[in-house]
């Protein structure tokens, strides 16, 4: 089973050390880890560092991975105007570094992912013709088609409606559990983080503020310090913790 731990990890953006000293407890197979923090806190930078797209100090310790390319990073949504169908774009994500030949196993896998994400109906539409939400779902399918053991998702639900947000996060949680995957999700919605994450990592100004159990990490004090808001944390009728923001703090 795969396990991931960050030890004093930092990341360079250009020559500047943009993220420093991120140390986490061991993240285990089957866990969902939410990475939260204000805009430009360094969430994407940290993900790129873990993936190996950026350099920096510290150790990224991966234990028990079955393949060399265990990590897949799903970048933030970008529009593409390539003349490719959704199906082709998912296929090419899966086939990187492999031969030209496309086997039945590849196609069956893609069909299954598309069905699971409920995007089979747009399989043969051009990428340029998709809405923002559809693009995001296609990005998720592309990332999953690589059969990652660790998946880093950069705001995967930012363009989705409420229903789809819950659907996708629930789906990723079940994927994590059933496949023994580690799912790291950068997300702005703290209530979704509280609901779906096993661990929460808070990052602000390129530094880690806290990492651990959501209930321990998401506190009124943290919200005031990191997000500059006055907030309450209350239980809803379903016994979930909820953050209610009353206003900004200065």
């Amino acid at each position, binding site marked *: 089973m795969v396990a991931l731990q960050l030890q004093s990890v930092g990341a360079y953006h250009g020559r500047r050390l943009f993220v420093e000293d991120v140390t986490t407890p061991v993240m285990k197979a089957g866990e969902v880890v939410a990475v939260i923090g204000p805009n430009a806190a360094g969430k994407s930078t940290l993900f790129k560092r873990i993936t190996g797209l950026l350099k920096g100090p510290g150790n990224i310790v991966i234990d028990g991975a079955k393949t060399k390319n265990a990590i897949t990073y799903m970048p933030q949504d970008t529009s593409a105007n390539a003349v490719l169908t959704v199906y082709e774009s998912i296929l090419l994500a899966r086939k990187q570094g492999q031969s030209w030949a496309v086997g039945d196993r590849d196609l069956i896998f893609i*069909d299954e992912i598309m069905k699971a994400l409920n995007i089979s109906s747009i399989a043969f539409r051009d990428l340029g013709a998709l809405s923002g939400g559809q693009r995001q779902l296609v990005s998720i399918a592309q990332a999953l088609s690589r059969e990652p053991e660790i998946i880093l998702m950069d705001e995967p639900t930012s363009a989705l409606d409420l229903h789809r947000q819950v659907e996708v996060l629930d789906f990723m949680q079940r994927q994590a559990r059933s496949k023994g995957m580690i799912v790291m999700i950068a997300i702005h919605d703290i209530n979704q983080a509280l609901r779906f994450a096993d661990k929460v990592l808070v990052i602000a100004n390129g530094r880690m503020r806290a990492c651990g159990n959501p209930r321990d990490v998401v506190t009124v004090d943290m919200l005031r310090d990191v997000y500059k808001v006055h907030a309450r944390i209350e239980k809803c009728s379903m016994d979930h913790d909820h953050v209610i923001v009353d206003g900004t703090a200065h």
Partner: protein
Amino acid sequence: MAEIAALPIEAEAGRERYRALARRKLLILAAMTAALCLSFAVDLAWGPARYSLGEVIAALVNPSSVSAQVRAVVWDIRMPVAVMAIVVGAALSVAGAQMQTILANPLASPFTLGISAAASFGAALAIVTSVSIIPVAASLLVPVNAFIMALIATLFIHFVSQMRGVTVQTVVLLGIALVFTFNALLAFLQYLATEQALSAVVFWTMGSLTKATWPKIGMTLAVLLIALPLFARNAWALTAIRLGEDKAASFGVNVRRIRLETMLIVSLLAAVPVSFVGTIGFVGLVGPHIARMILGEDQRFFLPGSVLSGALLLSLTSIVSKSIIPGVVFPIGIITALVGVPFFFSLILSNRSRSW
């Protein structure tokens, strides 16, 4: 939402349709190949002396069965030009296709980004002043100078496009600036040139396949045969780059390496034919767009599609160049420009249509 269940389960719809579309694309490639063969045969048959396709095929398959005159015309006079048209068309089209891919720019091509203009200047430098950029035999002076200038222009565009904050538009504007710069330098040389050198320069810049010789064909073909397997090896990565740099990198593509590698090969592909046959514009722009429109951008189909569309375009143009005035072979560059300019306009005006 269902789990991604263990294989295999039904969900045949997407799979079947994908297979059907892939088969259709293979059929299109086969049809293009057939069209190219036909165009090649017509190109050999067409000219001041017209032969039937039967005669041409006989001359090709069994040269001893036709008269010495037919054999000489088909093999010695028309064959180098017809083959050069195919090889140059393919090389320029693939160069354009990969420039468009790497620079994420639908208007990129050897001609529009000033590489042809740079080559013209290099050639003129050799013709007018006999100044050699690197020491070579006098007979190779013109192509070598043209090649080096084209290479410099390509690499210049590559490195500027890698700089921070450089957008797609910047690169096109840079290309236009290169065209103007090299045209001005060329005009300067033309002003200084003797009458004889001037006419040589003007003819060279028009682009003509009549300069074709077997060694030139061999060299262009060699570059093509080096380039295509390298591009083919990177087919998935090159396709991924069209989804954006971040996306491609997230799939494990080493974007920087692929870009540099591709641009270096493209500079060879663009520079070698231009240095042999002069400026033949728009094939490198129109060829890839035709391939993209009918085959999409999966490089496994787009790459052979670009080879075939470019080769077919220039082969057909070669026939047209002999047909306008009987007995006169028009410089082919004039015709590709006349056909290419309206296409270029339509690309700019359609902005981001299905074709990009």
